[in-house]
């Protein structure tokens, strides 16, 4: 069975500082990894994904994530946080079987709060 752990319920960062939201995963095969953001009363927005290739993935709104196979991690990062980045962030995984698409397994989510 696959699983995702987001160890922090909440991350507080001052505006302009770098931010990191942690994610570790467990999957039996090759992982396909995703980050999504959810703003209050709005749907899920896709930020970025890792399928294969370069371990550093760049996504929307200046976010990036680094895939680390040995540590089974996929931490989300941004060099300079904005107040508008404050939201709920979800890490998700599915097993890349090469066949039909599978659904995602989500972490519990991390509230990111950027303080002015």
């Amino acid at each position: 069975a696959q699983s995702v752990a987001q160890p922090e319920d909440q991350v507080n960062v001052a505006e302009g500082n770098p931010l990191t939201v942690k994610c570790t995963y467990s999957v039996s095969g090759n992982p396909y990894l995703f980050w999504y953001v959810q703003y209050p009363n709005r749907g899920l927005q896709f930020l970025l994904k890792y399928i294969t290739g370069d371990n550093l993935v760049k996504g929307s709104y200046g976010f990036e994530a680094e895939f680390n196979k040995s540590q089974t991690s996929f931490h989300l990062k941004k060099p300079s946080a904005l107040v508008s980045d404050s939201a709920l962030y979800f890490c998700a995984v599915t097993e890349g079987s090469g066949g039909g698409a599978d659904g995602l397994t989500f972490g519990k989510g991390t509230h990111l709060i950027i303080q002015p």
Partner: protein
Amino acid sequence: SAVISQKPSRDICQRGTSLTIQCQVDSQVTMMFWYRQQPGQSLTLIATANQGSEATYESGFVIDKFPISRPNLTFSTLTVSNMSPEDSSIYLCSVEGQQLYGYTFGSGTRLTVV
């Protein structure tokens, strides 16, 4: 990426009744997925709907409670049957995106059972 129209956006229902949620995609997709997000919780996959076959349900979810239809490659419905207050959640449909995109999600249906 695909655009998903999901409705209703919210509803308040009496316990013991059923609600059908519709999900329309602007392009043909093989798989459609239904998720539940309970208040303050993460998303949990309910089932995967493949056109032309019965949906595949995840552990803890059964067809009698959450029947799914998938009549064609652009449409699916999820019914929440015999509702109780514990069914109060946001229900979301999703499809797999194209190569450069992740899975796309509908805006969700916020269900309150009273």
